């Protein structure tokens, strides 16, 4: 069986900025893969390529063995790739339920079916009490959950989470970790981008480190955080920022 997702020497540049350079790795069915790296390392850019938002300049992305580069976000969503956004994007003229129904329509054959599916997903993600609330009234952690609920409503096989735990209180982050575990238990494969190492380490089996657009290393998280090259990349970034 091929891996669920194969990234094969993917490169992408924006106006001369190399966001991704020959990135290669594979994601296996049922795993939670961490994608880490300092600011500007190219994590979000890679998510954009996987979800079809942008087309890589070179290389190939295969989902269940099938090439998907260049298909566009709609086709990727329908194939079973869902994502959340680093900067939250909610449909602010809609209620929570309506937001999630937009995702549910990707699979549902009728409005009634979409509504039922959306209500189930909202109960699952802990937003059952907020169904009728206008989306713009949600608290930041609730908005993150709404994005996850909306993505789950499309019934994905692969879920891309971009810094969904960043900026949360430790308690909120723990609740988020619990939700991610439950999602994986439903059979959804997850790639998560996260800066908060304490949260990420116990959650993922494997992590890929990006730096300056390239794969720096990949392996078990406990080993990776002790890797001198990784420490240097992060500290270098911090010195530069200081």
């Amino acid at each position, binding site marked *: 069986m091929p891996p669920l997702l194969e990234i094969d020497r993917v490169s992408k540049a924006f106006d001369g900025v190399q966001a991704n350079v020959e990135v290669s790795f594979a994601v296996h069915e049922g795993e939670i893969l961490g994608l880490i790296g300092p600011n500007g390392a190219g994590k979000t850019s890679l998510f954009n390529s996987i979800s079809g938002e942008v087309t890589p300049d070179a290389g190939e992305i295969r989902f269940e063995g099938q090439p998907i580069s260049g298909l566009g976000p709609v086709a990727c969503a329908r194939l079973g790739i869902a994502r959340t956004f680093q900067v939250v994007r909610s449909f602010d003229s809609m209620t929570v339920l309506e937001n999630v129904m937009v995702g549910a*329509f990707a699979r549902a054959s009728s409005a009634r079916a979409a509504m039922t599916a959306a*209500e189930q997903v909202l109960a699952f993600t802990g937003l059952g009490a907020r169904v009728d609330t*206008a989306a713009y009234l949600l608290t930041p952690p609730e908005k993150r959950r709404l994005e996850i609920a909306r993505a789950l409503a499309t019934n994905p096989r692969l879920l891309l989470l971009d810094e969904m735990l960043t900026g949360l209180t430790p308690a909120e982050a723990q609740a988020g970790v619990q939700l991610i575990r439950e999602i994986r238990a439903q059979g959804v494969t997850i790639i998560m981008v996260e800066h908060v190492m304490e949260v990420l380490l116990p959650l993922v089996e494997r992590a890929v480190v990006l730096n300056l657009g390239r794969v720096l290393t990949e392996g078990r998280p406990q080993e990776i955080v002790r890797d001198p090259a990784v420490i240097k990349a992060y500290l270098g970034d911090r010195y530069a920022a200081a």
Partner: protein
Amino acid sequence: MMVMRSLAAALPAAPVRDNSILRRRRHELFVAGVVLVVLALLPLATHDVYFQNLIILTILFAGLAQAWNILGGYCGQISLGHALYFGIGGYVSTLLFVRAGVPPTFGMVAGGMVGALAALLVGWPCFRLSGHYYAIATVVVGEIGYLLFLNWDFVGGASGVYVPFTGHSLINLQFRVSKLPWHYVALGFAAIAWLTAFLVEGSRWSYSWRAIKDDVIAARSLGVRVFPSKMAAAGISGFLTAMGGAIYAQYVGYIDPDSVMAGSLSILIALPAVLGGVGTLWGPLIGSAVLIPLSELSRSYLGGSGSGVDLMLYGALITGVALARPQGLVSLIGVKRRSGGGDAPAA
């Protein structure tokens, strides 16, 4: 599939609980029932032919504005060329009747289909344009249609086509004396347009349109297909507008490019929805209840159409509403614009 199956197993197969969407839709249906009864009884209020005519035109334009609203309001594609579909409906049904003896009740459906086809043909290239460019393109397309019909001898050119009276007949939409039957024909049309908008509002398309308007990147990431959903709006809107055009042609008994395809007509179809509230179920009716009487009154008291006074009045009215009530007149009576949330504070 996996998530849903296991979720369904984990949770009791609960039927959809009551929520703000279902409550709002029940409420709208109830209001629609009341409005329908009131409008059906309206002819009792007057025997004056002038007022009867005014009411019929108001209801007809409420239906037309609703048809426009599906594309211009719910889907957010501002069309200023709807007279093209209106005229096509009028011409198709009239010519089928005059040349081939096809009853206008059938001709109205045939006209609707040609109108839908025209709207799809216009949408195919024009939906690739964004925002203002789409609106401008529809103006141009509407004007081309007008000139085409003006110079097309087969359809009567500039001298138009008369609908001969062939005797009292419902199927031919020909009524001898009273205007009363026309009241119910117009009301039936407006009711169909309203019901279509109501069904569209609850359908996947309306969710797609609203999602696209709110955040197109998020919408696409959820598998929302932008182009087909716009084409669906165009087709429905074109069909209903052409149907209204067929009814209008039959009612007036005469059509020429100036009466059914002029650019000012495109504006008159769009304005009630804009004034009443775009993307709302009741905006078109409220808007046309204000605009159409105003337009007729200005015509009778301030001189014939073409003097431009009526257009100046609209301009002033729209500007006033845009400044004081950007969400349209419908917001005055507490009906929420689009489907805002149950818990949302009245913003």
